Every structure is written in C-alpha cells, then in structure tokens.
C-alpha cells in the first residue's frame, strides 16, 4: 500500500527502462540496464566510448530497437519503431553528427517532416523567424545550414526538438564542438528548458559540465549501469573511478612541474606572415625541435587551417601569402606529398572523413603511411612486410584488437585514433602536427595518447598539438601559442600560463 501511494506521489518518471538489453550480432552493447528519467530533470549520462551511452539513448529515441527489456513512457509500456514515432510521442534526440540537411535553409530544416501539403517557403520562413526569436537564437532562418558554424547548427537542432513540443530531449555530446562562450549559452538554454518542465538526457565526455549542470548522474561501463544518483554525491574522481573501474586521479591533466618543461631545440620551422583567404591572416611563429608546441584557439580561429597550409593540404595565398621556411629554406607545397617527403606529418582532427581507410584493416591502414612516405623504395609490395610493420606499431602504440586484420571501423575511438597516429608516424616525420588528438577518445586512451606525444618530443621531434581543451594544452605543452582570428596572438610558457590567461588571449 505504501508503494502504491509513493508511486503516485512521486510524479511517476517520464521514462523508465527495465532490464533493457541490446545486442549486436549476439554481442551486448547494453546489458540489463534499469534507467529512470524524472520529469523536469537534467540527467547526465557518462561513460567511456563504447560504454553503451549512445545505444541506450537511441533505444529511448526509437532509433534502435532493444533486444529485450521494457520501456515505459509516462507509465505506459511502449516500443517506438522509429525516431519519428518517438518524436510524435514527445521524445526528441539531438544527434552527435547533426541530422540536418545541409543544402536546405534553417527554416526548411525546422519544418522538415512536418510540412503542410502545400508548402510555402515564405510562410515557414516567417514562422521560423518568430519561433527562433522566441528562443532567443540569433540564427537567420533563410541561411543555408551548410553555411552555419557548429554552434548555430546545434541551435537549429535544439530549436527543432523544442518545436516538436518534446517533453524529453536527448543530447548526444552537445558541447563537443562548442566554444566556451557558446557553451554558456547552451547551458542557459538547457536550464530554461528544464524550467519549462522538459526532461533532458545529456551525454558528455566533459565531466565538469556534467557536475555543473546535471541534477542526477548515471555512469555506464561496458554496457552496464555501474552508478547512478544525485549530482551532489559525485566528484570528478568518483565519476572517473566508476567510468573506468579504477582510480586515475592525478594521472590525467595534472599541472606541469616547471622542471619538466623541455627547452627549445633547433628552430625547424619558421613561418612569416602567411595568409590564406579569410581564415589565416598574416600569421607568424616558429616551431622548435625536442618540445611540444601547444596551439590553443577557439573553433574558427584558423589554427587548423594554418597548420594545414604548413602540411601542404591547403595552399596559401599566391600573392602576399607570406613565407614558410623549413630548416631556413623557403618551401611552398602544392600537395601534402611534398610536405610528407620533407618530414611534416599532419594527424587530422576528423579521423572518420580524412583519417582512416574504413574498408581496410589495421595493418593496411598503417601500411599506407609506409607506401606513401617514400620509405618503401621497392615497387613490389610484400604482405609479410605489412604484417611485420603492423605487429611493430600495434605494439608500440598499444593498439588493441583481436588481430591486425580487424577492420578499423570496428575499433573503439581511442584505438582508431592510435591507428591514425601510427599511420603518420610510420612515415618517420621530423615535425608532427596533432590536431585535437584526443577528440572522441575515452579516458584510458587519452593517457596513452598523451604518453605517445610526450615520447615523440623526448625523442627530439618537433611536435605541435592543436587543442581546444585547455587542460590538455596546459598538461602537454612546453610552449603555448594562442590563435585568434587567423593568427597567433600570444605566447605563454606553461609555468606562467593559467586557463584564464589563455582564454582571455583567445577571446579578446
């Protein structure tokens, strides 16, 4: 009798999952998870890559069908067959890779799937305008989505979810592509949604964000729910311990000892006044051997573009493009191949679209570096050599897979990233440029990737690390460059740098 009364009083949860299991080809991605989302709460869902966060939320949103278990929505047992069915019932999911149509306008995207039979462009533009204004989103409804930055796309996604009167909104890594300023706006919005009674599930890698904004926290590990409760009962260490099943405090993102900072070696790269279109403007800096040069900048500050010019991927302006000197000799690369032959390797921030060869295995991916780099002189290729290379590098980089023919797409984010790094290192570079080396990588692999980067600098290579994650910059760099509006605006030594100083330089 008590139980019944309590249930009724506790304003039954919006979503309740009981013993949910989802298996892919017999391998469970989510195992017997009980999950509860209360009305009007912000619920952070945490876990390493592959822990089953995305799968779990996709089950709620109808994008994935559970193998077994039941889901209750407002007390009724339901099984949504598709995301649109779930959306009609009030559950919206904002995906990691945005699901907007790039070639359509913001207004068209907002009304996608809910167009009237006679669809007037002007009509939806006007109502989209009013709707965006009511949310305080500074987005032009007539702009094409492909012209928008990551933050504004996110806003359109969110607006679409709100527009459907969703009572549950699931965000999959919403802040990964946002600048700190945009994050603040995003959090303010989430709180507004919460005040309006919307329940929010929030998947994130950034633990600080979860601690800051969530009411409750749930941690998944290997598809199982390992910990759940009020945010007040958690701190960083406790979450990490739950995520990885061990304590890791102090290993990741510690402040550097002034004594550990590597002195600058020979100057290998000197860049003066390079420009490329509007993205890179009169940028000048140098890179030295035997140390890690950290480059911090917000999205759109031109940091990636600058280093893509150096690696020959982009071409700098033909007139007044500035000069790049490698070992005091001017260079101008037309294709990356020339840069690679000179020992400059760029490790991409976007491993899926420009990093991995997805139909191939680990060995073939690693081998591409050897074949391309000019270290393989023979025109005849030996498979034995390929597997020997793969054995060597999977060992060096601790790439974990069942064997070296395992397809790269089936690996976890961390192992994929190691393959992409390995593919570059096989070319035996002198200058390695890491662009966001730990994006979408789980905590355990972050530590290992940082060790790899440190080892390269210790071996005397010139290492550049581009990151928009401040703790990473502070932890790795022997020298910190800050990029803003297409140029390096400030340099710090790690002993004097603080997060505040760097951010100030990046924003003002």
């Amino acid at each position, binding site marked *: 009798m008590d139980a019944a009364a309590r249930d009724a009083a506790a304003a039954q949860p919006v979503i309740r999952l009981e013993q949910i299991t989802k298996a892919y080809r017999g391998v469970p991605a989510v195992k017997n998870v009980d999950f509860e989302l209360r009305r009007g709460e912000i619920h952070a869902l945490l876990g390493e890559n592959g822990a089953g966060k995305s799968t779990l939320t996709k089950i709620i949103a109808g994008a994935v069908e559970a193998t077994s278990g039941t889901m209750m929505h407002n007390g009724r047992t339901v099984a949504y067959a598709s995301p649109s069915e779930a959306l009609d019932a009030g559950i919206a999911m904002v995906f990691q890779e945005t699901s907007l149509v790039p070639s359509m306008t913001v207004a068209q995207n907002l009304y996608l799937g809910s167009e009237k039979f006679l669809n007037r462009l002007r009509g939806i533009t006007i109502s989209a305008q009013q709707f965006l204004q009511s949310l305080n989103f500074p987005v032009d409804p007539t702009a094409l989505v492909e012209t928008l930055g990551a933050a504004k796309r996110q806003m359109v996604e969110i607006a679409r979810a709100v527009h459907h009167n969703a009572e549950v909104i699931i965000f999959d890594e919403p802040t990964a592509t946002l600048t700190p300023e945009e994050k603040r706006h995003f959090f303010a919005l989430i709180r507004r949604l919460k005040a309006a009674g919307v329940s929010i599930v929030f998947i994130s890698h950034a633990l600080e964000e979860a601690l800051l904004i969530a009411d409750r926290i749930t941690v998944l590990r290997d598809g199982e729910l390992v910990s759940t409760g009020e945010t007040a009962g958690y701190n960083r260490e406790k979450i990490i311990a739950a995520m990885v099943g061990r304590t890791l405090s102090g290993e990741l993102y510690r402040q550097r000892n002034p004594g550990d900072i590597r002195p600058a070696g020979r100057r290998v790269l000197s860049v003066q006044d390079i420009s490329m279109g509007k993205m890179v403007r009169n940028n000048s800096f140098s890179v030295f051997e035997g140390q890690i040069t950290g480059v911090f900048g917000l999205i759109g500050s031109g940091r990636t573009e600058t280093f893509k010019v150096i690696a020959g991927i982009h071409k700098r302006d033909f007139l007044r493009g500035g000069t790049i000197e490698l070992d005091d000799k001017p260079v101008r690369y037309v294709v990356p191949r020339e840069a690679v032959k000179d020992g400059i390797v760029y490790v991409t921030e976007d491993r899926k679209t420009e990093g991995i060869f997805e139909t191939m295995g680990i060995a073939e991916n690693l081998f591409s570096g050897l074949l391309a780099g000019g270290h393989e002189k*023979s025109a005849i290729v030996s498979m034995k050599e390929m597997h020997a290379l793969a054995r060597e590098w999977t060992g060096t980089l601790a790439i974990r897979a069942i064997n070296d023919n395992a397809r790269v797409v089936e690996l976890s*984010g961390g192992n994929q990233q190691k393959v992409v790094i390995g593919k570059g290192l096989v070319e035996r570079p002198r200058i390695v440029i890491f662009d966001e080396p730990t994006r*979408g990588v789980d905590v355990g692999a972050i530590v290992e990737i940082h060790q790899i980067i440190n080892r390269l600098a210790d071996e005397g290579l010139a290492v550049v690390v581009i990151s928009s994650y401040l703790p990473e910059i502070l932890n790795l760099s022997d020298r910190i460059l800050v990029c803003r509006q297409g140029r390096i605006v400030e340099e710090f030594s790690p002993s004097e740098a603080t997060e505040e100083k760097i951010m100030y330089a990046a924003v003002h």
Partner: protein
Amino acid sequence: MPISPAHIRIDRFLVSKGNSSYRQALNQETIVLAVTALIFLAAAVGLPGFIAPENLVAIVRSVSVLGILALGMGIVIIGRGIDLSAVAIMAMSVAWYLQLLNDGMSDGLAFAYVLALVLAIGAVNGFLAAYAEVPAIFVTLASGSFVFGFVRSQVISQDAVPVPPGNWVEVFGGFRLLDIPVEVFVFAVLALLTAFFLRFTKWGRYVYYAGDNPVAARNIGIPVRPMMVLRYVLSAVIAFVAGLLTAASLHSINTRVVNSTLLYDIILVAVIGGIGLSGGKGGVRNVLVGAALIGIMLNAMTIIDIPLIYQNLIKSTILLFAVIADGVLNPRDEQTAQQGDI
C-alpha cells in the same frame, strides 16, 4: 607500470568485438559464386552437351573479351571512378588501326600511331577527372561519344572494318594451343597481370587507398591525382587489347558494338562479382566470379534457346538478387556505420 588499465581493456575488447573480424561473412562474392555453381550443376545435369570440353572452352572464350574489359573497368571502379568510354575506345581505336592498314600504312607505324591515340584518350579522361575535377561519369560519357563520332564520321566509311588478309591480327586470332583459342590465354595473362598490379605493387595499393578515402590518401602523401590519370590510361589500353582480340577472332571490327549493351555488361560483370561502386573494394577475383556467372548463364540460355530479350531480363534480375542478398546478409548497423561510440 603506469598503464595497468590496459589489461582490463584487452579483456573487454576480446569480449565485445572478438569474433566479428574472424567470421568470414557470406558476402556478395560468395553468394554469386554459389549461384554460379548451382547454375553450372543444373546445366551440366539438364543440358546435353553443356559439360563437353569444347563447350566449356567456348564458355571461357565467349566471356574473355567481356572479362578483359571488366578488368579495366574494375581498376577504375576500385579507384572510385567509372569509365563509360571503354567500349568506344575498344571499337574505334581498332577500327582506325584497321583502316590505316587497309589504306596501306605499315603495321608498326599504324600500331604506334593508334596506341599513342589510345594513351592520349585515357590521359585526357584521367586529366579531366583528376585535375579539372569533372565527375568521371560525364567525362567518359562525353569522350566515348566523341571518339565514336569522330572516328565514325572522319576516319571510316562503313560500320565494319575488315582485317586485311594475311595480317598478323588474323594470324593471331587463329592461334591455338591444345585446342584452346588465343582469347583464353590473353584473358588469363591479363587477369594475372592485373591481379599482380593491384595486390603486389605500390601503385596498385594506391588504387585501393584512393578509392577508399581520397582525402585521407592525399593527406598521407599518396599521389592521388597522377594515379587517377594512370587508371584511365590503363583502362584505355586494356580496351584496345580487347578490341584487337575481337578483331582477331571475327576478322573485322563492327563499330556498332558501341551502341549495344556491351558497356552495361562490363559494369555488370564487375559489380555482380562484388566490386563496390563506392570504391576501395574488390579485385580481379571478383571480375572472374562475375565473368563466370555471366558466361555460364549466357551459354546455358543459348543452349535452351531463350530469346535475347529474355536473356537481358534474367541477367538484370540476377544482378538485383545479388545486391539485395548482400544487403540482407551484411546489414550496415550502427556498429559498422559509425565510428567509436556505440
């Protein structure tokens, strides 16, 4: 030992993703091979004379030109392109060559002249696709029509050009070893060469990298564009060889073949064997499987005396079946379609 967590994660990896890489999935190639074997068995039991050695040789001979053209097409498709000019190059280059011979030019000179033209057409195809970044489907469609139109209107006066009597092409076509006609040997040699090129040479591996992910290939330092030009040149040269072989066995070349369904049969052979149009997948083995299926099917249908129009219907139905079966047996779920996070 600062990274003890490694050990935990190894176990986890074995548990969660272990057997999927080991299991040899039933893919399109194996399905098509199985269907081919079934048709072969059925024909061997049901059709008189099908299993006779002469008929088996005839089957291989009948698909050898198609198979050779499909080798060239395969190289291009693996590199994420397509070559719609193959048949035009095959017929028109040889027509021009024979016309020059009939006009009294010497063998060597005419051959060098036409080979240079073939290389040039391939290079133009490749250059426009690689450097001007015009989609390959338009480039090769246009160049195919151009080659056909130009040669037909300016060089030759009739649809068919005969091989001059006693010419080496005629002698070559009559060559037999152990009762096996020369087409079979040429097909076999070219298949071996192509397989060697694709599997064991650096440039062959570049074809796969560029076909799988051109951006990643470029960034890692693979010469993506020059290699694309090479692929179209190879395809053109292979088409020329196929044309010479056709002329050798028929003692003439009929340029009306350009407007037949041959081009689609070539693509059919490549695709049905499992060379994905999205690039990076497949190899010579897939061409052989595709050619075997088409050859056995056509032969069986001819023996049963099914009209040509129905043969096309049956071919296309089988292609659809193969593609659908592949899609059903190897669904692309989130696990394989998305990186990292599940």
